[in-house]
């Protein structure tokens, strides 16, 4: 347990004053009295302000959930403040945490508290507010601490740029939503003009055509339905260096931000989104819609730690896809297993899009014992293999697009939707 201790300033004032007064007394030197008189007063004032209470300090942060790039304040509560004049705080520096003041050192008078501003720069679970605190009594005679305060675990959600996609989903199967369905129903998109059936609404009758054909005709429309999206995030490894929200991006940074952006976009349209992360913990969120579901997805993304699943091989993972789902695989495609999994989903008849998350300047981390030339050569060979995998995926009908921001999927989804509208040739018995 920490307690108040005399400072070096008090010791110095008393030592110099004591020596000066002693010498002046013994040798009869009035000039020395004048010389040390101010230190005598400072020392006496510091002694008179000796603390009599035991302070309690606690750190507080404003938010437990933040998006990367957002900021919060780390405040310090000191009670009681009777014997405290000055507070010194030194925040621990941590990876991907920006502080203001930048060096994490802050001092303020106890009656004029100043918070430390904290801003996580990368998604994940971050501990913020870890700091050491020292308190000083009036006249700096006594110091309490420094004591270490444990920070608070904060979920840092991936940043996602909001956008509205104009592309219709390829396979809408739900009850109500924003995507044009292949079926006729109560929507706004024109489908055809057909003869009146019982149950048709009167306001749908097209009188001009009905008069010409001597039979009642109605305008039929396509129904509008929601769709289901499965996001598969490859977190087997992280390639490239991460500089946080405003720096370079690693492959996992790209995957997390892309997954967050896609999930947000489709959930805001009223679609159902599911998440499956290929990682040791296998984070999974079932199909759902709404802002709470979006928060759940972003929360799972923030907990992802890269690694290979221990219990099941990648190409045997059950993705629990719903019928008619559109699958978006976010992967650097450096694992054969992920490519196999994508093809497996494709063969089930699901539209699959692969978003390539490998940054252009990504390079593997090689140990210092490895010859850099060999490391570079191995990486080039790996990239050649990756190119072949991507080509094979494209040939199998699985479009591969690099992530270029929120509108990346628009063109591909539109093309898939058009393909889904085309009549299919039956392969039944003749």
């Amino acid at each position: 347990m920490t307690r108040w201790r005399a400072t070096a300033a008090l010791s110095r004032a008393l030592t110099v004053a004591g020596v000066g007064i002693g010498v002046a007394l013994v040798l009869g030197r009035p000039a020395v009295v004048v010389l040390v008189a101010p230190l005598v007063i400072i020392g006496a004032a510091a002694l008179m302000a000796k603390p009599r209470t035991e302070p309690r300090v606690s750190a507080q942060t404003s938010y437990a959930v933040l998006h990367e790039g957002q900021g919060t304040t780390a405040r310090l509560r000191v009670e009681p403040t009777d014997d405290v004049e000055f507070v010194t705080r030194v925040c621990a520096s941590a990876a991907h945490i920006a502080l203001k003041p930048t060096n994490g050192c802050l001092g303020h008078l106890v009656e004029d508290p100043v918070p430390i501003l904290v801003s996580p720069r990368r998604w994940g679970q971050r501990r913020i507010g870890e700091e050491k605190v020292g308190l000083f009594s009036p006249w700096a005679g006594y110091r309490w601490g420094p004591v270490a305060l444990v920070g608070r675990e904060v979920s840092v959600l991936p940043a996602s740029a909001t956008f509205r996609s104009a592309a219709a989903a390829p396979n809408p199967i739900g009850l109500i939503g924003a995507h044009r369905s292949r079926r006729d129903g109560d929507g706004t998109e024109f489908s055809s003009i057909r003869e009146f059936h019982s149950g048709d609404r009167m306001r749908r009758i097209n009188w001009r055509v009905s008069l010409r054909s001597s039979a009642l005709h109605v305008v039929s429309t396509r129904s509008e339905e929601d769709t289901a999206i499965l996001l598969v995030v490859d977190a087997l490894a992280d390639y490239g260096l991460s500089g946080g929200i405003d720096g370079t991006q690693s492959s996992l940074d790209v995957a997390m931000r892309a997954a967050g952006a896609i999930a947000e976009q489709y959930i805001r349209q009223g679609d159902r989104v599911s998440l499956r992360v290929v990682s040791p913990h296998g984070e999974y969120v079932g199909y759902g819609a709404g802002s709470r579901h979006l928060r759940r997805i972003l929360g799972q993304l923030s907990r992802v730690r890269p690694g290979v699943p221990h219990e099941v091989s990648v190409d045997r993972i059950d993705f629990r896809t719903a019928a008619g789902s559109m699958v978006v695989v976010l992967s650097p495609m450096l694992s054969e297993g992920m490519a196999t999994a994508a093809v497996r989903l494709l063969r089930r008849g699901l539209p699959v899009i692969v978003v390539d998350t490998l940054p252009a300047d990504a390079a593997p981390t090689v140990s210092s014992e490895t010859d850099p030339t060999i490391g570079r050569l191995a990486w080039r060979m790996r990239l050649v293999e990756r190119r072949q995998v991507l080509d094979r995926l494209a040939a199998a009908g699985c479009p591969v697009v690099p992530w270029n921001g929120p509108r990346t999927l628009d063109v591909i989804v539109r093309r898939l939707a058009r393909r889904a509208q085309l009549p299919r040739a039956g392969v039944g018995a003749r």
Partner: protein
Amino acid sequence: MTSYLTPGGWALRAVIALGPVVALLAATPEGFAPPVWLIVLVVLASLGFAYLPEQYIGSAAMILVVGWWSIDVRDAMPLAVVVASGGLLASHVAATLAAYGPRALAPNRPLVLRWLRRGVLVWLVAPLLWLTIDAQRGHTTPASYWVAGLAVALVVAVTAATLYPTSLDQGT
């Protein structure tokens, strides 16, 4: 160390280093010049003090100055002692401010202003004492009378502060 010092930190270190040197050399115009070896010693101790303001090397630098004043100036009462007193006080206050936190901590402006006010008020005691002692010169009251009075006051203050029981001392 230097790379982490803020401009305010540099200013404090400069005052810490200069204070004892000014206190030592203040009486030179009035004919009290310290020996070169002592100047060198005080400069070195002052630089050490500026480097480690929270350590006891500052006391050494100040005691060297006080020692020289008591040995060389003897019972003379030059006006420069008021300047020297200000030098020691400035060095002490700057070191106190610098020791409030790690080197990277920028001096807190309200605290600096508060200590500036304190320093000026406390320093005013020096010219007042000088005037009082100077006015008493030639009278029957010996200089040691004032010394004894101040010493008694100091002892009383220290004893009262040290012996006064606090809740912390009683372990509550």
